[in-house]
């Protein structure tokens, strides 16, 4: 965009100082800021000038801000608690659906039983739910598992994002005890949908548990949890 000749090293450094000082306005500022955006060397020069000049800020008179500022900041950094409540509601909804489905199945069975010939249908396997929480805390992740489709859905509450450079890994702890099976990294944002493979599916049943541990970004290097367990919960019928 700029048709100007390239700046000499000295002019570039002066430009970096002008940007650091906030002297530039309008197009001059936009151009210099864009240069800083694409040129790391220039950006470093701006940072260098900012650092050189920063001690001047020591002279500024301190003034206590009104209390309302902290209240507003606190409100903005608070975790949205409504999300866990929403998760609970959703689980209750699932429970409701499942109860309704059971009731309908039962009434159908009754109709069928009163009729003479056809054999009774096999009882539909029930959806299982695990509310994973830290000790005594609110639910942090919810897993629902449909034994018929072997579809597992894991949803994290808000504020469950792993720290930078880490991931959350899901583990299945069989009802009979023994080693946890790794079930993969769980995203904190999107619902995690996975199909449980056949041999493991028989372990996903009432009494087994799910747990989530903190692991390196690519998951546990050992196949067993290496970091702290942040949430766990048993599978129960929905």
């Amino acid at each position: 965009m700029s048709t100007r000749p390239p700046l000499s090293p000295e002019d570039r450094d002066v430009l970096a100082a002008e940007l650091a000082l906030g002297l530039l306005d309008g197009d001059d500022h936009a151009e210099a800021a864009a240069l800083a955006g694409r040129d790391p060397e220039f950006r470093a020069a701006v940072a260098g000038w900012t650092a050189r000049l920063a001690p001047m800020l020591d002279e500024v008179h301190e003034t206590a801000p009104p209390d309302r500022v902290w209240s507003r900041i606190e409100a903005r950094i608070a975790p949205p608690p409504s999300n866990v409540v929403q998760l609970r509601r959703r689980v209750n909804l699932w429970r409701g659906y499942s109860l309704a489905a059971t009731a309908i199945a039962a009434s159908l069975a009754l109709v069928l039983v009163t009729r003479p010939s056809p054999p009774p249908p096999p009882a539909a396997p029930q959806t299982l739910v695990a509310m994973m929480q830290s000790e005594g805390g609110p639910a942090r992740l919810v897993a629902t598992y449909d034994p018929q489709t072997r579809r597992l859905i894991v949803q994290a509450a808000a504020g469950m994002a792993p720290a930078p450079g880490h991931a959350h890994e899901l583990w299945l702890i069989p009802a009979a005890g023994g080693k946890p099976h790794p079930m993969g990294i769980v995203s904190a944002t999107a619902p995690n949908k996975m199909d449980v493979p056949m041999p493991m599916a028989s372990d996903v049943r009432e009494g087994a548990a799910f747990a989530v541990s903190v692991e390196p970004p690519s998951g546990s290097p050992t196949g067993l949890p290496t970091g702290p367990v942040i949430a766990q919960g048993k599978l129960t019928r929905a």
Partner: protein
Amino acid sequence: MLILAPRHVPLPYGLPPLFPSSLTRCMLRAMDAPRGSEEGRRLAAALAAVAGGDRDAMALLYRRTSAKLYGICLRLLGSEAEAEEVLQETYVTVWRKAAAFDAARASPVTWLAVLARNKAIDRLRARRAPAEDLDAALDVADEGPLAPELIEKAQDRHRLFGCLAELEEKSAAAIRAAFLDGLSYPDLATREGVPLPTMKSWIRRGLIRLRGCLER
């Protein structure tokens, strides 16, 4: 009955800023830093904990630094309402970006002070810009070219003040007014009643001499 790793096993990698036990580790790490006062170390530890989502550390950081940062915003903006808003934005940014702070490279107070100043300067620029330029100005601010990647050794205040004292008085006064009061070239030219090119040459000459002095 769950056979899982105990809750506080040492992690074989990086810094896990999720748990209280990590706070101690952050503090130890910050104390290893060769520079900085006791208060600086305490604030660096608080910043590291804030990066891990620790709200108590955030409250401590605010208690210890907000008067300084509010003073900076107030001086630059001259309006309590705007200074309060910018102060709020600054700390919300600190909450989100605390992980970008590097105790080995900058003092926490300087990092925070520069962050507040940059936000206040952005606000001043947005105030000056005609409405249609406002979005562009804010976009540029978001790119963060002024991100305070501060290098501690450059912050020798005695040297800075010594070098400012060596400049012509009008150059030094203009540089200080730009940095501390947020005055741009046109503002400064109007205030001093000189043509814009004159003001530019005063300041540029001053900056070149200042750099020469600081590098000595």
